């Protein structure tokens, strides 16, 4: 089966800035995929290339096997993009906006699906309100609906929850997850790493126009061995042998850096040998943020 997205040897330069320097990436159908990276890493450039808003200097992008430049019609029919910036056409109401967007994709009678979209995104009572009169969060919902009017198989969300309230985030994620479970491929860029960790099955991390990490969320988390050990001791003195690992002490509670889980046994043994009793103990779970920070701090391998 053809992949949802296939990118080979992709390069893009803006003047003296090499925005993307050789991206190879395949995203399978039905995946929930996360694209992470700091500002300026090339995430939006990659998405704009995929959407045909930019033209590649080198390499190819295919959506369901259709080249985004040469077979742009089939490629764009298969793709729905929620842009990062809140944009709208102030001349129209919500429903007009969605009907017009449907028409651009060649859909004449789309009322049923538009009503479903309005309902799922809590926009039904705003359907006949002019776009200008909507709040930022409401406009964002309309952008999501606009990206979905043609029921694209591949859906790209470029930082969909930036500056969005909790209620919309929940509405949005519930809807996106149900689309994913119906077989739609989802590609997400976000600054909220907990969102990526919660929803994405696989993650690519971008830095300076290159992919610096690409793996399932599970293995990325597992490969990151660093843990934090929090122990409360009685008596509260920390054995000298453990001083180099100490990050912080609050009374009898000490926070220790563990380079890996393998060091746990030895650390506990040292505490036991010192005669101190462990009154409380907890071990931090790795989160994507730690991994993100550690990968972004590494030098890009040339």
């Amino acid at each position, binding site marked *: 089966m053809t992949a949802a997205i296939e990118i080979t040897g992709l390069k893009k330069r*803006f003047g003296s800035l090499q925005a993307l320097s050789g991206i190879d990436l395949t995203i399978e159908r039905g995946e929930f995929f996360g694209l992470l990276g700091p500002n300026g890493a090339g995430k939006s450039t990659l998405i704009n290339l995929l*959407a*045909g*808003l*930019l*033209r590649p200097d080198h390499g190819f992008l295919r959506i369901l096997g259709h080249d985004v430049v040469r077979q*742009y*019609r*089939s*490629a*764009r*029919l298969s*793709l729905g*993009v929620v*842009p990062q*910036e809140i*944009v*709208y*056409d*102030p*001349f*129209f109401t919500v429903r*007009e906006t969605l009907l*017009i*967007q*449907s*028409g*651009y*994709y*060649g*859909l*004449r009678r789309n009322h049923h699906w538009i009503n479903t979209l309005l309902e799922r995104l809590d926009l039904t009572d705003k359907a006949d309100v002019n776009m200008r009169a909507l709040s930022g969060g409401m406009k964002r919902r309309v952008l999501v609906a*606009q990206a979905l009017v*043609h029921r694209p198989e591949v859906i790209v969300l470029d930082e969909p929850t930036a500056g969005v309230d909790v209620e919309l985030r929940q509405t949005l994620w519930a809807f996106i997850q149900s689309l994913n479970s119906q077989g739609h491929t989802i590609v997400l860029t976000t600054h909220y790493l907990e969102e990526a960790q919660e929803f994405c099955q696989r993650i690519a991390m971008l830095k300076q126009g290159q992919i610096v990490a690409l793996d399932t969320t599970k293995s990325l988390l597992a490969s990151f061995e660093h843990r934090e050990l929090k122990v409360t001791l009685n008596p509260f003195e920390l054995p000298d042998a453990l001083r180099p690992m100490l990050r912080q002490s609050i009374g009898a509670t000490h926070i220790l850096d563990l380079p890996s889980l393998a060091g746990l046994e030895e650390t506990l043994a040292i505490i036991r040998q010192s005669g101190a009793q462990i009154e409380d103990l907890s071990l931090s779970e790795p989160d994507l943020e730690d991994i993100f920070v550690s990968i972004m701090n590494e030098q890009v391998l040339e």
Partner: protein
Amino acid sequence: MTGFLTLLYKELLRFWKVSFQTVLAPVLTTLLYLLIFSYVLSRRVEVYPGVSYTAFLIPGLVMMSMLQNAFANSSSSLIQSKVTGNIVFVLLPPLSAGEFFGAYLVASIVRGFSVGLGVLLVAQFYASTPPIHIIWALLFGFFGCGILGCLGIIAGIWAEKFDQLAAFQNFIVVPLSFLSGVFYSIHALPPFWREMSHFNPFFYMIDGFRYGFFGLSDVAPQLSLIIVAASFAGLSALTIGLIHRGYKLRG
């Protein structure tokens, strides 16, 4: 076809929803020209025998308002979409360069004809000017608005800011349309300026359009039609090419 029709519908709705500003205002402005120029000059100038100056002025003003509004429609729609960012809504869908071009072009022509018709109807209170060769008038109206619609698309795509667009309009479109023989016959000009007028494409649009009303013109209407139709074809090809290449729209 649905994509083209939808974009056309959107473009028509866009100016129709603000028709006070896009149709009525230019009609009023043009009528002010008519009022002032005909009052000041009607006793002193007779351009064609048997045609009063006011009557002479009307087709020229009608055409000038059509041309300026055809240009304004496509150019302002595109620059607004670019500046506000909602141009992505038409760049993301699978619209071809031809559909994109056709929709903006036809909307410009419709806007031009709406304003032109408004001016013509109200002007009949000043002087009756029924077109004697209506087909010629319509042909020149169509090609003239088409040319300016193309220029508007090119300017709208090229300009990055409103003031660049205003420069295009104020330094190219307005001087060429004012100096094209709207207010005078070029035969009344000194020889040098008469020759220069022949290099102004707007001159042929106005002169040919006026032929449709009076059956009188400064140059043969066939020649004007060939020049105007060829300019339209050339500009259309250029515009479609620019859109196809994604010039300034898809970096």
